[in-house]
């Protein structure tokens, strides 16, 4: 994107006029909104005398019960505080808890004048122009469609497996009927930067040079992930490091599901199935056709009728509790949903914002998982005018603000290649999480207690959670090794309101 680099403070004021929300001179301020289990950050970056405004994600996994329109208030606050201009709208990955606001608070987003959202930054995985992105995207869509159909087919939607698959699918939006509300939200966000006949979307790949942002001299933006590497992208399990292929479902399951759908609808499966499905279905049944008995064949039978019973209206059947109608599809859909979810988390756009004067770094990891974290270390960044390349370790060592991955779950913060390298004594961690909402979804290990304990040690008590009023009103030092001066500084730099928690990172030593 060729744009003439402006060099004077006057230009940046003209280019980036400050709104109400102003960072400390030369520094960066971050607002974490408190909508619940989901990410939405407003970041004010000093740009000479002006302010460069960034928004990272806008979503929540489900509407807060007390205040369903919370996200609308958030978007309104963003508009009021920035003067109605966003210089970079960042969408990290295609998950509902990061994008729902582009759907539920669309009215508020519409209030932004055309052109006032100057650019959108997204991961390279979201573009159709890249062959690898395209391939992975198609696999993803296919798998999502399967999971969604499978869920609709469950005869007992309240069964344990079924409801868990459903709650997991809430992330990528397969839970509700209608095609891909999460994708719709993403596309809306991407579309908002369209002006002047251009898309103005940057699809970012990691490593190389820091992003060129005209008029922002005191701050560098590094892209760390997602990796441009199929295997790392598919790697999510911290222990086994196995690589999964998301769309490996097989025609056998597809055709079986199609036949099951038709049967459930009371239709003739032979009329309803496509040629391809028919062939796959017949091939997938392991026995000769003269052995097949359908429900119609056996429903008058003294064996199957009392022992198994019909599919519909059978809650009263005494053997209902032992039926297995959903097990085959529940297992397949559950495995697929898990893989899909991991894979999408791994496509998270990861950004590090470095304040040049102090060298301090703010790290936003989205929901990156193992493969993504590991990949940061597999390349380096060249800063124009600097002879030694910058390594991921350098950025981690200088990190003073860490946006904790995936709401504090155990597999989205890498221990040896991540947290343990964050050695800056000023480190502050923020977690956009909500224990109650997670518990409602039965994710009882989010946030993960041992990770919270590790963060507590590493930040010496300076860990901010969206679901806690901290440090507001806390008088006692949160950690014995935190000095009174450090505690005071931290409290001064952190503002807690019901709408957001704000933390300021100064630009001068």
């Amino acid at each position, binding site marked *: 994107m060729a744009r003439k680099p402006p060099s004077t403070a006057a230009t940046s004021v003209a280019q980036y006029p400050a709104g109400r929300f102003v960072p400390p001179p030369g520094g960066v301020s971050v607002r974490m909104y408190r909508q619940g289990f989901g990410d939405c950050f407003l970041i004010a970056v000093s740009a000479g005398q002006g302010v460069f405004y960034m928004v990272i994600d806008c979503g929540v996994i489900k509407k807060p019960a007390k205040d369903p329109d919370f996200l609308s208030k958030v978007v309104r606050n963003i508009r009021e505080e920035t003067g109605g201009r966003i210089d970079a709208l960042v969408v990290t990955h295609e998950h509902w808890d990061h994008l729902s606001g582009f759907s539920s608070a669309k009215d508020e987003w519409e209030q932004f004048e055309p052109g006032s959202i100057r650019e959108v930054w997204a991961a390279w995985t979201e573009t159709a122009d890249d062959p690898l992105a395209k391939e992975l995207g198609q696999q993803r869509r296919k798998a999502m469609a399967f999971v969604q159909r499978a869920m609709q087919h469950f005869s007992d939607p309240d069964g344990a497996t079924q409801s868990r698959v459903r709650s997991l699918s809430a992330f990528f939006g397969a839970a509700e009927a209608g095609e891909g509300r999460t994708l719709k939200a993403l596309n809306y966000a991407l579309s908002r930067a369209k002006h002047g006949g251009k898309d103005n979307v940057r699809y970012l790949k990691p490593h190389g040079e820091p992003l060129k942002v005209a008029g922002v001299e005191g701050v560098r933006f590094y892209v760390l992930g997602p990796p441009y590497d199929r295997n790392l992208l598919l790697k999510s399990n911290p222990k086994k490091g196995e690589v999964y292929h998301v769309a490996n479902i097989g025609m056998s399951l597809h055709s079986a599901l199609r036949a099951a759908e038709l049967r459930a609808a009371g239709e003739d499966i032979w009329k309803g199935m496509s040629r391809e499905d028919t062939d796959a279905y017949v091939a997938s049944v392991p*026995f000769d056709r003269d052995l097949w008995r359908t429900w119609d064949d056996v429903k008058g039978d003294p064996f199957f009728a009392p022992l198994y019973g019909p599919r519909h209206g059978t809650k009263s059947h005494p053997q209902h509790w032992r039926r297995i109608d959903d097990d085959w599809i529940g297992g*397949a859909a559950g495995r697929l949903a898990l893989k899909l979810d991991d894979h999408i988390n791994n496509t998270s756009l990861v950004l590090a914002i470095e304040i040049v004067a102090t060298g301090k770094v703010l790290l936003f990891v989205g929901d990156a998982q193992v493969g993504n974290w590991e990949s940061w270390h597999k390349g380096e960044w060249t800063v124009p005018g600097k002879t030694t390349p910058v390594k991921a370790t350098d950025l981690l060592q200088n990190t003073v603000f860490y946006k904790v991955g995936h709401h504090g779950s155990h597999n989205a913060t890498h221990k040896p290649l991540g947290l343990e390298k964050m050695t800056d004594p000023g480190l502050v961690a923020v977690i956009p999480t909500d224990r109650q909402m997670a518990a409602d979804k039965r994710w009882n290990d989010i946030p993960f207690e*041992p990770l919270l304990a590790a963060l507590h040690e590493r930040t010496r008590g300076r860990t901010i959670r969206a679901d806690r009023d901290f440090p507001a009103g806390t008088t006692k030092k949160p950690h014995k090794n935190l000095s009174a001066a450090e505690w005071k500084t931290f409290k001064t730099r952190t503002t807690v309101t019901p709408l957001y928690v704000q933390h300021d990172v100064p630009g001068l030593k």
Partner: protein
Amino acid sequence: MPPNTPARRVTSKGNTPAKTPRHVRWPSSRRIRVFAFDPSLSTQFEHAPMNEATITVPWEQDIRPDKDSYKTWNPASGKGESLGPGPVGEYLEVIDYDPASGLFYDPVNLNAPQLLAQDGLPPSEGNPQFHQQMVYAVAMRTIEAFERALGRKVLWAPRDDIKSKKPEDLFVRRLRIYPHALREANAYYSPHKKALLFGYFPASESNSTGTPGGIVFTCLSHDIIAHEVTHAILDGIRPEFQETTNLDVPAFHEAFSDIVALFQHFAMPEALRHQVKKTRGDLSAQNLLGELAHQFGTAAGGHGALRSAIGRYEDGIWKPNVPSQEDYARHTECHARGSVLVAAVFEAFLTIYRDRASRLIGLASNGSGRLPEGNLHPALVEALSETAAKVAGHVLNICIRALDYCAPVDITFGDYLRALITADRDSVPEDPRRYRLAFGEAFRRRGIFPTGVGSFAEDALVWNDPPDDAPSAELLRDIWYGWYDPDGTQSSTKYAGQILSRDRMHTFAHMLSNQDLVHSKWLKRDDVRNASDRLMGLALSKQAPATVYRAKDGYPDVEVCSFRPARRITQRGDSVTDIVLSLTQRRRGYFDPAVQEQADAGHIDFHKHPGDFEFLGGCTMLIEAATGRIRYSISKNILSVSRLRRQAEFFGAPGDGLRSMYFGRHLDEPFAFLHSHD
């Protein structure tokens, strides 16, 4: 198929019309053809002849009807039918519905004369009725192994999805078996449905023994059937083993199921002789007997069996397992940890077998111990096979009987070793064949050390005697025999008359009512409450920490989870009955020791801070039925601080893989042959 006529003409004893000239009894067993291992071996020139085995299972007669279920009961005669189509018998019901295909397959009728006359259908992959026949046969034989070892009827775990407390509602007479339930490379016992679900799947392209893309049926694998039905039986004996309180608990479930499957190989005479011949009697060399799930392993793209107790393939070359003291600590995945226990038990078997076989080999080699080159003499093969089968039977018996010598919760492999040693000493006090040494050594070589035991000497390993001043348990004896008279009237317990009934439903009801009596009478006695800590590792007095869950009367709550007999024949030929009584308790656990202390003292509002996890304690008592003497009291102390801290650490650690994060620590189907995220 109507009840077949030839079987009818030969009526059962007691039902015989007076004019029938002589009594012909029902046979005691039924012969059924199966694959000895799995279908893949039948296509191999070397293995095909021995892979078609005929096994015997108990003949089922007078099968009782289940509540609301399939009626095999004949009201006219007051007698149950013989084995019904399905097969549906007293313990099992095979229902062949394939939900992915939406198809039903007709049930096999093993009482059809055509099948009675030829030991059932011939082994075939393409005939679903043979599949039904094989799952029935292998499952029945596994059930029989348990009944023989424990001297009591196998009961399935009761229903857990209903509110009713009535025994007839809770009782599950039959385990259900779905041979074609899933389209995946897996099989599981579903504790909620009380059912075994078997999957089928296309073999991988790199499959070395079968046709790539050919269908593999898990319900045709002897090992997978035996493994899964063992999960179900174990769940019936020790339902608390579903509570994963340390890594060994789920690993034990897996290992135990593998052990039962392995040792059943030795009850297939043709296969056994074949493998003894092939290995020249050295069963530690690669052989099918020490391996599990051959076809499954290769179909998934591996080189050999899915799991093996004796060795494994590395880069295509088979290597024997070399035990190391790190084995136990190193493996932290549940099936891998379980394989350490399987290897230990199998090694103990091999040691005992080798010792016995050396005598035979000595005889056959004029004392030199060196056998001539070439094939072994058929008589030697026969003798070695018999020895192997005998030792395998002993080891399997010991392994099963040891279950009654385990605390009901929080089992570790070390505890299991102590249970094995104690159980074996009870039936064979002298140990002339050094079985117990063999077990101790095999466990020690793999780094399985029981906690709190100074040495591997037998005296140290056997469970301790209960304290001398243990409260009297005569009441338990009286309850057991139905002598206890709760109302002071002549009537005894509600089900006392049914104690000797052969109906498993009455056995079950009797157990439940006895459990109630133990709970309401014995456990409420002051001497028992006061001795509960020392005797049972439970906290039953009012002084118990506030974190121990309380009953309505303010005393700590306790659950009586089983009250069943264990019968054994001693070396001298006496029949001895013990009562196995298991109790469990629950306590609120907190990750932070300081918080725990506060909570124990009752300084915490439990509504606000209900606890980070549940800490379980429990005790299994073996009580001599004749005298009411408490012989052993094997406990997991509810008051133990070190165990509480260990459990806090365990619950605080990340679960295995992602599933545990989103789906919680409890898997939907915890007894899968392979866990889905493996």
